[in-house]
């Protein structure tokens, strides 16, 4: 058994008030195992947005001009970077690695876990985006269904 290898924990965060709790608990667990921590935030990519909005008739994304769309997307990425930096500062650990991805959240979480060779994935149980859950399914549930590495689920109540 390769017990000497440093374990790696991937903590997936989203813009949710419960993210702080997930980051703290995931971090605590990682430290208890003496593991390295990577924080991940996924920016939903524009293609997904456009497919979600494609059925909305007059509100189609291609009615916006391209420049605005690009600009909005850039802002999304900057926001995401700041969000992760904040989380890292909150945990007060410089060794934490931050990763930003674009695309389908569940897929990106699984891909990143493979890329960095993670031993565990940490996620919250609930998403407050109940409407999103109904429309496109719970991200946690999807990762849970497809993961090949153990997953650490932090219970987050709907109102926490």
């Amino acid at each position: 058994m390769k017990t000497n290898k440093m374990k790696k924990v991937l903590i997936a965060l989203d813009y949710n008030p419960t993210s702080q709790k997930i980051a703290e608990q995931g971090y605590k667990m990682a430290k208890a195992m003496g593991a390295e921590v990577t924080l991940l935030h996924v920016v939903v990519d524009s293609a997904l947005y456009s497919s979600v909005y494609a059925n909305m008739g007059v509100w189609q994304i291609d009615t916006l001009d391209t420049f605005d769309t690009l600009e909005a997307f850039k802002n999304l990425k900057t926001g995401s970077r700041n969000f992760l930096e904040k989380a890292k500062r909150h945990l007060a650990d410089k060794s934490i690695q931050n990763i930003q991805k674009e695309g389908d959240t569940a897929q990106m979480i699984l891909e990143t876990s493979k890329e960095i060779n993670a031993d565990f994935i940490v996620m919250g149980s609930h998403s407050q985006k109940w409407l999103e859950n109904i429309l496109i399914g719970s991200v946690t549930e999807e990762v849970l269904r497809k993961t090949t590495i153990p997953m650490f689920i932090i219970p987050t109540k709907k109102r926490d």
Partner: protein
Amino acid sequence: MKPNNINKILIALDFHLSATKVIEAGFAMAKMMNAKVILLHTKIELIDYSLIYKKIGSLKLDSLEDLEFAAHNFLEKSKHHVGDDMIQTIVKQGDFAESILKTAKELDIDMIVMGSHSTKWLEEIVMGRITNEFLLQTKIPILIIPTRNKIKAIL
């Protein structure tokens, strides 16, 4: 922040081919964290067993005593598998989710470990399909060991 306050880990096992994998992973985790391990097996009602085992035929359990014996035997075996006699074992009966969460509360558990095949109820909590307050009140993190590949093997 206290770096390590995960002191007690509850590993929930059922009669599934993946039980070894779940206990190995849970035990390794407990060792890393220097935590105490408690093994829990929840017997479901005999009537459910007969439904489940109908297809298996000869493997039918005939009485409650057999079931009790099998449960204890199973946990003892699991305990020996990881080679730690200090592990506490508990057999309960009733609803799977409720018994896990109740036991976890009673024993002041810091983390629950279980296989992904037994997470139907968890998915339901995640998806918000379960409204049972008791289940929603859990604050204990759950470590899920993926066991799906093995499930396919027995189906």
